[in-house]
């Protein structure tokens, strides 16, 4: 007697849908961009001649070296700064951790363009430090002092990228520090190790993987960032902006695809390296670690506190300048306060683009959370074949290796094609209708930000006993009822975390969207680029401020929600 089992059918259907979704939104576009990089603009197969052309174009090649240089220097500075910052807060436990933490992650809530815009206001030719302060001093002292800071270009990009990458490496290192095992320190102490010796023999080795991971992350982030160099780069070309110039500026799609592939290579290597490190790391951390509390050392701790305050002030200064400037009538000629830049009259995008961003971010967060959580559930809890599980898991982590710019280029290439020529057959592209819609931007965001929340969901689901499903099934309770009654309430913090992550990142991202927007669907971040391109810097500052305000409100709501829910679910899971 064979019995039709509706739960298993649903799982099967969902699996089918899931794999097809990832196929259409990830595999096919990426395959296509590889293919395009081997074609010329007439669609003929030319092997690697695009790459040959790339390496023979001095201006493109120069950008590659510039990008590598910028990324290395950014990484060194940013990892060092965040290491000391995290060391002070999580290892020396100097106090004010909520405040320091909050400020440190602020840049995550802002677009990278905002850092560039602030730098223009601070150090540009009419900047606060480069013009206004010196002129004020000259007036008082009667001197003729002038200051020129070459902020457009190398210096400006470095500062912006350090601000951008700081929170990322800070978070990685913060986790690494909080895993420090007290027992090791006690052992070292009983063996008579000096503080310096302890630092080098216990602290540093336990952070090895955290530091490596932070280094890789920072390198890739600054290597692939588009927003800041677009604003502050001046004539200092970097590869991320080249892709934009090739694709948007000249619509040279094959070269855009080629540069995209070149951008992809380091990211991909880093992805593999990072996966490797993550695997190692999970072995070294045991759940038996006992949290470490250091002995207080007043002078040393106060120096560290001073350091943290300085870093925090610098971050607030960079973020705050754009906010401040957005309320100034006409920098540097008229310092009256005004709200007129927030009307976005006569500038690209206008207020609609802000609402577009909200819409796109909410859609991304809602559909993304559903997709990502259910995918993780499929991998972690369902009874599908191992092969499917590992395939989904691999596909889910793959976006970590793909920069947003490459996703954007891959999407226009894939979704704007009406007919594919596959082995001599013309096949109509059934997904062409997505081109130029909100939907494609939502999908690109979901794919772009897929991996991190996917891992969050996996971790969350791992905490739930695998027998819950079995018990529920044996009690003849339908799957959907079990899911809503047990899984969802138990995973609420994970879900909120994923939702928040997707929302905030969709609000600040520009890289993929800059290729996918239309006049109707233009998001705020693209509007910022357009405004800045048109020279409407104050409006761009105002839009950047709107984004960070929105994200701050969300962050406060998020923190409050998490606080109440986490307390409850932590208690539930206590044994």
């Amino acid at each position, binding site marked *: *007697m064979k019995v039709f089992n509706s739960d298993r059918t649903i799982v099967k259907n969902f699996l089918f849908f899931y794999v097809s979704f990832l196929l259409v939104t990830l595999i096919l576009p990426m395959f296509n961009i590889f293919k395009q990089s081997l074609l010329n603009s007439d669609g003929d197969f030319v092997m690697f001649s695009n790459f040959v052309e790339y390496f023979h174009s001095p201006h493109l090649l120069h950008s590659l070296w510039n990008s590598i240089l910028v990324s290395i220097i950014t990484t060194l500075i940013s990892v060092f700064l965040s290491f000391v910052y995290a060391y002070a807060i999580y290892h020396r436990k100097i106090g004010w951790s909520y405040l320091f933490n909050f400020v440190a992650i602020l840049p995550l809530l802002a677009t990278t363009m905002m850092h560039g815009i602030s730098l223009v206001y601070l150090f540009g030719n009419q900047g606060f430090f480069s013009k206004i302060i010196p002129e004020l001093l000259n007036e008082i002292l009667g001197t003729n002092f002038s200051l020129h800071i070459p902020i457009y270009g190398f210096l400006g990009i470095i500062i912006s990228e350090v601000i951008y990458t700081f929170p990322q490496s800070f978070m990685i290192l913060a986790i690494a520090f909080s895993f420090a095992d007290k027992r090791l320190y006690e052992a070292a102490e009983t063996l008579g190790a000096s503080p310096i010796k302890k630092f080098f023999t216990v602290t540093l080795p336990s952070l090895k993987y955290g530091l490596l991971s932070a280094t890789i992350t920072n390198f890739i982030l600054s290597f692939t960032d588009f927003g800041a160099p677009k604003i502050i780069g001046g004539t200092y070309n970097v590869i991320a902006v080249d892709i934009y110039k090739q694709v948007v500026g000249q619509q040279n799609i094959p070269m855009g695809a080629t540069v995209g592939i070149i951008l992809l290579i380091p990211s991909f290597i880093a992805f593999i390296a990072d996966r490797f490190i993550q695997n190692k790391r999970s072995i070294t951390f045991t759940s038996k670690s006992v949290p470490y509390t250091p002995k207080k050392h007043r002078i040393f701790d106060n120096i560290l506190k001073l350091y943290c305050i300085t870093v925090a002030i610098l971050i607030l200064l960079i973020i705050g300048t754009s906010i401040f400037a957005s309320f100034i009538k006409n920098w540097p000629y008229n310092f009256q306060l005004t709200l007129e830049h927030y009307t976005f009259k006569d500038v690209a995008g206008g207020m609609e683009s802000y609402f577009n961003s909200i819409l796109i971010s909410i859609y991304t967060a809602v559909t993304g959370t559903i997709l990502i959580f259910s995918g993780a559930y499929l991998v972690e809890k369902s009874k599908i074949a191992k092969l499917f599980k590992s395939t989904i898991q691999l596909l889910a982590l793959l976006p970590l290796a793909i920069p947003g710019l490459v996703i954007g280029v891959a999407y226009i290439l894939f979704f704007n094609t009406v007919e594919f020529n596959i082995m001599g057959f013309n096949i109509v592209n059934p997904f062409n209708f997505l081109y130029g819609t909100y939907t494609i931007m939502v999908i690109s965001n979901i794919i772009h930000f897929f991996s991190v929340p996917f891992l969050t969901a996996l971790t969350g689901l791992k905490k739930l006993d695998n027998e819950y499903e079995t*018990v529920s099934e*044996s009690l*003849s309770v339908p799957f959907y009822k079990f899911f809503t*009654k047990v899984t969802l309430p138990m995973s609420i913090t994970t879900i909120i975390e994923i939702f928040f992550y997707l929302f905030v990142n969709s609000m600040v991202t520009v890289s993929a969207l800059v290729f996918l927007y239309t006049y109707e669907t233009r998001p705020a971040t693209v509007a910022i680029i357009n405004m800045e391109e048109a020279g409407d810097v104050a409006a761009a500052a105002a839009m950047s401020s709107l984004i960070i305000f929105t994200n701050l409100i969300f962050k406060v709501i998020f923190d409050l929600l998490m606080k109440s829910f986490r307390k409850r679910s932590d208690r539930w899971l206590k044994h």
Partner: protein
Amino acid sequence: MKKPYLRLDGITKRYDNKIVLNSVNLEIKKGSFSCILGPSGCGKTTLLRIISGIEQLDEGLVFLEGDDITDLSPSKRNFGIVFQSYALFPNLTVSENIAYGLESRKKFTKKDKKQIVKNMIKLVHLEQEKDRYPYQLSGGQQQRVALARALAISPKLLLLDEPLSALDAKVRIELRRELRRIHDETGITTIMVTHDQEEALTLSDHIVVMNQGNIEQIGTPDDVYSNPKNPFVASFVGTMNFLKAGEDFFGVRPEKLTILKAPLADSHPAEIIGYEFRGSYYRVTVQIISGKYADNEVIVDTPSEQFVDTLFSSGKKIYIDISEKDLIIFSPYSGFPSLKGKNRFFDDNL
């Protein structure tokens, strides 16, 4: 004879070509309490999961009251399952956990459901705790909730997967009695998986002894204890001495042996080589010096006073009485792995 309630017919299960269950046949009577007993890795939990439908089988058939239920999904079988880890839903209270399986059943009214939950709570003595969350309960209480949850749906079969092994010794004994009481009150056919022979002996109507994917013996506790079919069963259920005499191979329980101060007709000279105090009795290790059973080492359970007296008056040289009627005869190559060294006897699994 009455038809069996549950019948397993040639159940075979492989994991990556490794045979976990090797054509297992089993019949369970209605209303009985059966224990599947065996060491870890013997396939007992897999067998239980196959009965429940959670696990798919490779070959064989499962019948319930004569119906083939082999391909029926767990949700269609209406069996209650209790796991070692309790698997209580942490976000639901005791009452909510118990009511969980009733909710999607349309045959009950709201009032019915309330009444059932109330009855179940009473059955497992958790009236005080009904509004608490699992994290507020002790391990024993949590297992009672799991039991009540499984029983609330009036299952056709109650399946218990090592339900007591995560608990401390004292709670375990207490809950053991509870299990039996609840079984007797509800009359639900129950199958429990355990590796604890004491649990199996005290609790069940029938014991199914398993080893390496095969059923070694099925019988009442007394039957299995007194007449083990082979050395494996003999050693796994209770403690057993194995004696070799020429080509012959015997088993004898330690409590069937007697230590004598002076020789008797059938006694054998022996030497005490060790002993441990066990409260009411001593467990004494003895080396037989000469006679038919020379060179065998056996353990003897002797009442404490008697042993102290013997030790005081005779020292280490004693005699041991082995009565022929207490010997269990095994064939010399009955598959018992080794008779050397410490494997000579198996202590109970405590």
